[in-house]
């Protein structure tokens, strides 16, 4: 009897020590960003919390695909559905309780079997790059709380789920030959008053106000009847509130949005009508419509970004 208790105590003690040492080692571990990718590959727990990948994307193997499917089943299936067509339980329940608008997602989850994507660095009509998908999944599509951010996932899981999503539509194979090159987006120039004024003129010439309204509040004359590919009403973005953007709301993100458009929505591509200079002017004008716009702050942030040579937010 006594010896039993003694052994038990020893076991409990050993367990405690193990847990403690784990906790200590977790504390002394370097920050996840500093880890080389190969260690991340083996240590499941490392959540990098980044939107841009730090490591390389792993090669697509049957193992990775399988892993992506598990990740999908665990985290995405409820909204995007068992078939990946966007008819997950969350959406279907929303339809069922249509009387209560609160139950509905404002946007239908993406149908991966059709593979039409909003957030692309590639021209309208082309598929997004893996990096585009990585960023969209990491950032989430947060306007109206459509889709949460998944930046807490280890990078491997994100790459794996991307590989899996891409296996759900034939477009990725059938149209591989037709894909156009991504648009190159350089570093934004420092904003100035003149630039913003010029941008206002570009906004007028390009007639963005038709949908987004004269002050960018999303209330243009064509706004009321707009629909997305699912036939659901969609409103043009209100530029005064950056928190409602579904793509990146930083200068390069905005540049990308109006250059390539949001396929599957009325937001068209203006790529054929704007030169590089006009694009940055337009970017800064759109940014300047924010209620909390502050030119000096924007310049400071841009300078800081250039100094650390970081990317977009």
């Amino acid at each position: 009897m006594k010896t039993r208790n003694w052994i038990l105590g020893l076991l409990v003690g050993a367990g405690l020590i193990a847990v403690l040492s784990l906790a200590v080692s977790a504390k002394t571990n370097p920050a996840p960003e500093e880890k080389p990718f190969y260690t991340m590959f083996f240590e499941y727990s490392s959540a990098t919390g980044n939107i841009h990948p730090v490591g390389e994307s792993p090669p697509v193997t049957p193992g990775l695909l399988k892993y992506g499917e598990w990740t999908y089943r665990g985290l995405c299936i409820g909204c995007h559905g068992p078939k990946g067509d966007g008819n997950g339980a969350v959406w279907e329940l929303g339809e069922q309780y249509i009387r209560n608008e609160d139950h509905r997602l404002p946007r239908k989850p993406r149908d991966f079997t059709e593979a039409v994507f909003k957030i692309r660095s590639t021209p309208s009509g082309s598929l997004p790059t893996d990096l585009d998908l990585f960023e969209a999944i990491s950032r989430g599509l947060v306007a109206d709380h459509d889709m949460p951010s998944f930046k807490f996932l280890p990078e491997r899981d994100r790459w794996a789920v991307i590989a899996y999503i891409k296996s759900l539509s034939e477009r990725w194979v059938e149209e591989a030959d037709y894909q156009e090159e991504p648009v190159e987006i350089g570093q934004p120039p420092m904003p100035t008053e003149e630039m913003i004024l010029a941008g206002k003129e570009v906004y007028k010439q390009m007639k963005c106000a038709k949908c987004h309204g004269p002050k960018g509040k999303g209330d243009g004359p064509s706004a009321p009847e707009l629909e997305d590919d699912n036939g659901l009403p969609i409103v043009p973005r209100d530029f005064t509130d950056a928190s409602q953007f579904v793509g990146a709301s930083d200068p390069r993100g905005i540049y990308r949005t109006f250059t390539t458009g949001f396929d599957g929505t009325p937001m068209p591509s203006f790529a054929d009508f704007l030169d590089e200079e006009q694009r940055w002017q337009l970017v800064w004008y759109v940014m300047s419509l924010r209620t909390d716009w502050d030119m000096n702050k924007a310049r400071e942030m841009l300078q800081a970004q250039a100094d650390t040579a970081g990317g977009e937010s």
Partner: protein
Amino acid sequence: MKKHIMHIALATSLILGLWSTQALAYKVIDVSNGGKITGVISFNGTPPANPTLKMTKDVDYCGATISADYYVVNNGKLQNVVVSIENIDAGKPYDKKAIIPFDNKKCMFSPHVTTAVVGQRLGVNNTDPILHNTHLYHGPKKKTMYNIALPLKDRVIKKRMRKPGIVTVQCDAHEWMLGYVYVSKNPYATVTAADGTFTIDGIPPGTYKVKIWHEKLGEVVKEVTVTAGGTTTLDHTFSQ
């Protein structure tokens, strides 16, 4: 072992699949003594009334209302019907570099219906001094193929038609605008003229399935035999 068999089956079907899509691609051959299909597409009875479209934007330029162009019937003859040979793998040459004109004109699409061969480009233009956006949707599920803004007048934007099928064209800025591009796998597709007539020529002798499609009246498929140097008549009458 089972797994291996599965893999082999998969690989074989993949190879077969690739091979068959290649076999499906249209091949240009010399058609020296081709035949012709010609005919008239009619509408029997009183055609349904075209709805009046309310133009709620750019009224000073577009006007306030216009009659839709869904049924264009002249003396019982139906315009804007697509006639297309579906199963022809090899035949006459065509201009792969041709740009198929498609205009935004007076807040309507002109032409209302057109055809293009897979790989050809649509040349979208805007002759109006207002913003249009030409939004092309593919197939019956209407999924975005391209969405291009046309903020400035008279600049032709060329977009390649990559997949066969019906392409629906809309303008988000003016929700009443509607048009169609029938993208065919071969150059044997056309649209009926104002008098309901059509002609398809340079067809190698043989028996073919010909599709007759109207945006509202649906489609019929008829079997047609074409002889060397001969002309086969193909008429069809739609009714409500």
